């Protein structure tokens, strides 16, 4: 994957690069491309959710794409729904440690807000962050 990108002189993957990559390597899954370590822009990057901060940034990027590109809205929603399902599965899995389960449950809420209304997400996230800060300081 990296060789393919390097041979074309790509420094990052945007829409044209993503489409060329998918056409050239149809058998390679989106998840494999994302795991290659190449810098991929939203929404092709999928929703990143290793930390809450990463999720917030990722959902902000998705909201920007959602607002600017009506043709990409179904794809954006598909990606967020998949990420939400993934987080929900982790939040309910007894094999996942308690703190991570709680984090994943919180992430599910964040993605649900995005799915309900992407344009509201920024304001909601700010309020939620403030509330979380207040709770942790008391």
């Amino acid at each position, binding site marked *: 994957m990296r060789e393919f990108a390097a041979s074309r002189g790509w420094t990052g993957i945007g829409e044209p690069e993503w489409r060329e990559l998918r056409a050239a390597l149809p058998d390679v899954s989106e998840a494999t491309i994302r795991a290659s370590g190449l810098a991929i822009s939203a929404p092709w990057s999928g929703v990143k959710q290793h930390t809450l901060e990463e999720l917030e940034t990722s959902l902000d990027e998705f909201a920007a794409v959602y607002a600017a590109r009506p043709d990409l809205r179904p794809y954006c*929603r598909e990606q967020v729904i998949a990420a939400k399902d993934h987080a929900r599965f982790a939040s309910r899995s007894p094999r996942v440690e308690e*703190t991570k389960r709680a984090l994943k449950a919180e992430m599910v809420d964040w993605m*649900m807000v995005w799915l309900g*209304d992407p344009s509201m997400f920024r304001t909601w996230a700010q309020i939620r962050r403030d509330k979380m800060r207040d709770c942790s300081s008391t």
Partner: protein
Amino acid sequence: MLKHLTDTLIAWGPAGILLLSILDSSGVPVAGVFDALLILISVERPGVAWLCAGLAVAGSTAGNCILYWMARQGGKAFMSKAAPEGKAAKFREWFQRYGMITVFVPALVPIPMPLKLFVISAGVMGTSPAEFISVVLVARVFRYFGEAWLGITLGRESASFLRTHAAQFGLGALLLFVILYLFVLLRDKRRRAQANL
């Protein structure tokens, strides 16, 4: 015109029931009350009552799935077409709070309730298709087979039975609400306790 279309579909018998249930559940307004129609057919033609109930379940599930998929793809833009923003936000909020209970109760109880907006909310919020279909299927099986049974068992007395027991049905629905609400409270409490660990 709607009345004419509905009458034509009724004249088709079981096939009409199937089409009517798909239309009714997918958001197309049809004249008349579908539940009353199913009971009436069960009274008049008991031989096809179970078939009609089965077709009503299949058609209604298919119709709800159409609505759900459109909302799942369209998101907020689709919901905005179905309801004004303030109302849509309220329904989304209720759905987020109570989950699929908001779909189950109106799908089960033959009292007029806003099922369509909750189905749309389920689609917008990206509920899993398996969960959605199973909830609608269970609710509709109880509702339509129950109505067919009522029509077969009580015959022409069905209408008067429903009238005289309307209060009990209302009470039953209320009880169901309370039980499911308590369940949600308990679930939320457990989740909060887990989150605080």
